[in-house]
């Protein structure tokens, strides 16, 4: 007779094992700590998103925060408030299927969003990653039977082409499982042997655990634009300045994917814990 599990009795988790993520993708993500997702946005969406970002950078709408002096140039925080592609890209079905697999079944939510508008010469430092990363909310978790319970994962979507030598996102594959701190605190990114550039065409993205050591190579181009969405388990609170506005909640209420992402944080889903006892 099959042994009963916690879920058989208490129904504390929903949507486990329902994603369509292939074994190959699960294996790649578990091994490397990221996945490259080609062609998440089509050319029209890319163009529309670029236009929107140029417009709102000039006149910042309410509910979006401009960080003019970020390490990259400037950032627009809570970019989902910009509607259209910036809003739609938080709930791309291909991405959410991975999110469901890697975080915790249907118990995931959008924690934060931003646009990154880099200026020439702007790169970033390498994040710590692995066991030594002090950011507990970034933990990578996958158990021996292949069940993921990651905390924060990020989908970074390029709105301009990046190449190997110009502004690529980069990461140390497998560093989400590093037992030791990386020894590259003050090292030029180009001198870090295990760091791999992950060039992306505009519209493509990379989905990675925040526990992966990652960075941006400095860009040369004048225009270098990204959308970034952070997802976490249902109980993770919003990133500062990323509270969804009532306007956003109202206009997404009829969209199951978006409204699910924007639910208030919760531990157990509505309707859980209703199973009969054994």
């Amino acid at each position, binding site marked *: 007779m099959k042994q009963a599990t916690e879920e058989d009795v208490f129904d504390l988790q929903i949507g486990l094992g329902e994603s369509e993520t292939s074994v190959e993708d699960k294996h790649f993500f578990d091994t490397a700590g990221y996945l490259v997702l080609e062609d998440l946005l089509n050319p029209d969406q890319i163009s529309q998103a670029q236009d929107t970002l140029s417009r709102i950078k000039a006149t910042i709408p309410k509910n979006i925060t401009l960080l003019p002096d970020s390490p990259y140039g400037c950032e627009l925080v809570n970019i989902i408030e910009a509607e259209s592609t910036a809003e739609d890209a938080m709930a791309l079905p291909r991405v959410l299927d991975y999110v469901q697999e890697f975080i915790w079944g249907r118990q995931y939510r959008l924690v934060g969003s931003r646009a990154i508008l880099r200026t020439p010469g702007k790169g970033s430092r390498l994040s710590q990653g692995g066991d030594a990363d002090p950011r507990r909310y970034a933990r990578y978790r996958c158990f*021996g039977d292949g069940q993921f319970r990651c905390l924060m994962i990020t989908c970074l979507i390029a709105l301009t082409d990046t190449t190997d030598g110009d502004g690529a996102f980069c990461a140390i594959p497998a560093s989400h499982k590093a037992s030791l701190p990386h020894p590259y605190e003050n090292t030029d990114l180009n001198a870090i042997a295990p760091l791999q550039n992950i060039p992306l065409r505009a519209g493509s993205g990379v989905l990675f655990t925040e526990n992966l050591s990652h960075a941006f190579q400095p860009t040369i181009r004048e225009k270098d634009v990204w959308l970034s969405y952070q997802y976490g388990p249902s109980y993770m609170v919003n990133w500062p300045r990323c509270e969804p506005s009532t306007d956003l909640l109202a206009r997404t209420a009829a969209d199951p994917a978006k409204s699910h992402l924007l639910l208030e944080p919760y531990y157990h889903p509505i309707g859980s814990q209703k199973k009969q006892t054994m």
Partner: protein
Amino acid sequence: MTQEERYLFDLHGYLVLRGVLSSDIHRRLNETIDYLETLNDNQTAALGAERKYRASDNVYAQTGVPSEGGLGDYDCQVLCYGGPFEELIDLPQTLQYIEEMIGEPARLDAASFMSRNSGGAFRFHHGYAELLPYSEYAFRDGAFKCVSVKIGYALTDVDVEDGCFAVIPGSHKSNFTNPLVGQIPDPTHPLVQPLPCKAGDAIIFSEDLSHGAVENHRSKVRRTLFYSYAPAFHCTWHGLAMTAEGFEQRATPRRLELIQGPAPFAHASEADVR
């Protein structure tokens, strides 16, 4: 925490702290509950301490039978009422343990009172709970990094026959699904440890530990307060950390921080999450 307490918490997943509630606070807590139990349900709800009775088909609880004229098994929010319940938010005797067990800026994510009658019990849940990520027990780099630590304060003496709290020591590290999940704890089972307490004692445990309550075979009502803490990036449980009017004005800075939560994403700068 002493070295022995650290060892035992890691080994067993819980600690029993004797006499952490002074006779004064213990008396005032019980007097407050006595007073609230003289009121009807509407009156307590209006005061913020709405009683939620355990339904007979509750998946966790085996409901007890009240004495004639007594209240059924119920839970209620306590911080919405305020009073002496606020004093336990940052009780120094227990908060020092919480801070070390969680190991980073923490918040209170729930506080509630439970009243259990004769015949009542609580089924085992959790253990192998790393698959429930909000309750994970962890120890890394020489430090505890638990994500949910709870304190059960006994307001009445509770012996095994009175339906005391029970745990499976070590189950916070189990690598297998728990075959006792969903069962009423059997105090004679070799894995089960009943934890009798005197009024004023506290049990601090990782939510990852398999825990429940044995059946109350006596007529005495068991009274327990539960206070739950988590890292600041966790949300609260269904309003169970909501406070009464005027709390912000009368709370100590530490108490206020534990309720409102410190900055949720510790060690992050704006440049850290891309």
